[in-house]
């Protein structure tokens, strides 16, 4: 195997990393013309990485220990890079002159981190990949604005992030102690997955390790009780960056959680299932009721981001249910939902970033008052995103919610966690009804209020383009979701196959859909 062959599977990541170096180097140039070329260069790099993803469909990872490539990797690569392009467009004008190099280079690092998270097959690599997603975002928050709140947000985000990283890696150390290897999955020989097949997940090391690791990852996806940073960080960071914070770390966290659960064959002990159940309920309720009290749109969206993590937890708890009809798969629902969530969240923040009120960035509800009169297209985009976040047809958010909830409702009665999961979905439905109130308030302020003074549209072509794509995608994905759903489903197939293994190992007589014996 030549070096080229060996490195082919990581071509997208390598493209990004070479780009990172180039962007960092250009960033210190003294010539403004060179610095202004950084954002377009970043766009080219992202597109190049997309091309590389398309080219290297043959994913033979035998040359790279610690990485593994399956359909899930491919899916995450596609959606991350495609969203990355949109994130770049929306963030086009965020860094001040002289900081573009750092800002966009760090953004590329974070994107590369998500790609690596999706292909990590080793606890060390997984840990590093997740840190590679987070560490650049800490810096970006501090760089995004000179507002005092940006520094405060960076402080809180970074310190709590370090705390959660310590907790997560402590959990990883127990998992390593259980298996004696950091390899997560291997077709033969030692791996975490093989160990779980052998000893099950009820072992004390396994429970403690999984619990701590999941707690650390819960921070990335902002699940109660590890959510507390989210509102402040979202409020403090510049709006376009907030769209990124709502997508990349969350995606990385969920992908890592899916990998962890795959490793233990989706056969968590009941105690951990109940723990996740409680966390999901608390997350939905906490996010929604606190969002009701906010007057700052960024905080509303931050709390709503928490509650959306709660909805996605439902799908995660349902797990991959294979061969039971088209809309019954919880993990595919999560993978589908997170794309839609990323788009609608970014769209909402892009609207905020495209508006100025008396020279300040718009962020409160009052700032949005009468937007439909000042900038009708922005108001429509905001309404589309708000309705999508609400889960209201005809927007893709509706389909995402339907997919998540129907995955829980359609569990077979024989499923050991059937009752609690259906209850959870009902709680989710009630919560999304509560959520409608504050999303409607956002839309209502845009359309049903007299405009205040000094509301001005700012930004430029690129952020506007990103916003247009986000809100159009909400409609298009509603009308034609089939392709994305199918991709999400096939991505799930690769993590779902371990379920069958578990049943074969346990020798249980239950059908493959029932992933949890006992």
């Amino acid at each position, binding site marked *: 195997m030549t070096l080229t062959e060996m490195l082919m599977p990581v071509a997208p990541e390598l493209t990004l990393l070479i780009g990172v170096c180039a962007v960092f180097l250009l960033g210190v140039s003294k010539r403004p013309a060179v610095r202004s070329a950084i954002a377009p260069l970043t766009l080219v790099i992202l597109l190049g990485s997309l091309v590389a993803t398309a080219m290297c469909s043959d994913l033979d990872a035998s040359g790279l220990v610690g990485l593994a490539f399956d359909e899930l990797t491919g899916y995450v690569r596609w959606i991350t890079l495609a969203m990355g392009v949109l994130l770049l467009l929306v963030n086009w004008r965020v860094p001040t002159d002289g900081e573009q190099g750092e800002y966009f280079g*760090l953004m590329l690092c974070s994107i590369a981190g998500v790609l690596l998270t999706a292909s990590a097959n*080793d606890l060390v690599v997984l840990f590093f990949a997740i840190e590679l997603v987070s560490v650049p975002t*800490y810096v970006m928050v501090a760089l995004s604005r*000179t507002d005092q709140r940006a520094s405060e947000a960076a402080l809180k985000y970074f310190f709590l992030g370090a705390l959660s990283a310590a907790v997560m890696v402590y959990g990883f150390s127990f998992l390593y102690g*259980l298996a*004696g290897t950091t390899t997560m999955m291997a077709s033969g020989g030692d791996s975490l997955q093989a160990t779980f097949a052998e000893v099950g997940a009820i072992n*004390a*090391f396994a429970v403690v390790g999984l619990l701590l690791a999941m707690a650390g990852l819960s921070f990335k996806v902002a699940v109660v009780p590890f959510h507390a940073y989210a509102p402040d960080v979202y409020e403090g960071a510049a709006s376009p960056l907030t769209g990124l914070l709502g997508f990349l770390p969350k995606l990385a966290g969920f992908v890592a959680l899916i990998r962890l659960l795959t490793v233990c064959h989706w056969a968590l002990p009941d105690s951990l299932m109940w723990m996740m159940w409680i966390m999901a309920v608390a997350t939905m309720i906490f996010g929604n009721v606190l969002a009701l009290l906010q007057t700052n749109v960024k905080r509303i969206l931050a709390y709503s981001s928490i509650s959306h993590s709660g909805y996605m937890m439902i799908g995660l708890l349902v797990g991959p249910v294979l061969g039971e009809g088209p809309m019954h798969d919880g993990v595919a629902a999560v993978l589908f939902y997170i794309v839609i969530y990323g788009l609608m969240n970014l769209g909402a923040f892009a609207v905020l970033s495209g508006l100025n009120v008396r020279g300040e960035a718009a962020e409160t509800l009052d700032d949005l008052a009468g937007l439909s009169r000042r900038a009708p297209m922005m108001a429509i985009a905001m309404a589309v995103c708000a309705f999508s976040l609400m889960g209201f047809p005809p927007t893709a958010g509706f389909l995402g919610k339907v997919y998540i909830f129907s995955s829980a409702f359609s569990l077979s009665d024989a499923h050991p966690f059937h009752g609690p999961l259906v209850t959870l979905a009902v709680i989710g439905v009630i919560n999304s009804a509560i959520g409608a109130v504050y999303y409607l308030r956002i839309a209502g302020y845009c359309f049903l209020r007299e405009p205040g003074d000094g509301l001005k549209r700012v930004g430029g072509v690129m952020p506007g383009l990103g916003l247009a794509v986000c809100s159009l995608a909400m409609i298009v994905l509603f009308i034609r979701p089939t392709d994305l759903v199918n991709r999400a489903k096939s991505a799930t197939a690769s993590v779902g196959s371990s379920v069958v293994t578990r049943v074969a190992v346990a020798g249980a007589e239950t059908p493959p859909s029932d992933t949890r014996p006992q």
Partner: protein
Amino acid sequence: MTDWLAILIYGTFVVGGLGLYFLLPTTGRSTKMAGALFGMAALAGAMVLCGGRFLAASGVNAVFFLFASVAIVAAVLMVTSEKPVYSALYFVLVVLAVTPLLLLQQAEFLAIALVIVYAGAILVTYVFVIMLSQQSGPSIYDRRSRSPLLAVFAGFVSMAVVAGQMAVLPQDWAIRGTLVSANSAVAVTGVGVGNIELVGRVMMGKYVVALEIAGLLLLVAMIGAIAVSRKRVPADGPGLEGLPLGQSGREAPPF
């Protein structure tokens, strides 16, 4: 059997937690004496625990007790010290006390790296920053801790549960075979190498991807730290006169 073991473990954590609580800085009446007493009791409990239950059979040497005690005491002093410089120096002591324990585990290279990187490089930077930012003695926020009872409760309950879980399920200990010498892996690889070589081989083999990402992370941290610390921001806090970092706070950072 397991009952008294559990009581001993949880008791150690409770007593230790109380000790730490009394030792944490307050502006009120000093409770350091009580804290020290409780801490000593907890340390004795831990020794009984380790010596009585787990180590009797295998006969651990005094080195472990000595350096583990030093590490714990130094750690406690680190979080309770009112002077940040002392905290940093106590942390150096923790690292130095942990190093022999790593040597006991035949992790020579890690031990050296820990001393050089941690105690040497990182901690010096800390001390440097502390020196820069706090020249006028301990400030009020260093002399009062924030909700110490809650902190002790939360921290010690979580870790007591983890530790207790490790102890009450002794049959799970050696799940994947018995304890063997780390360097017996030499036998597996068939090459007569020492710890450093072995670490090097495995790191450059199995963990080469992680190594690459580590390099990238360090690059990110370097660029990030520079970008953050040179960011031009308005100074908006009180009492900026006589700051070590330039008069207005708008100047470039010192390094």
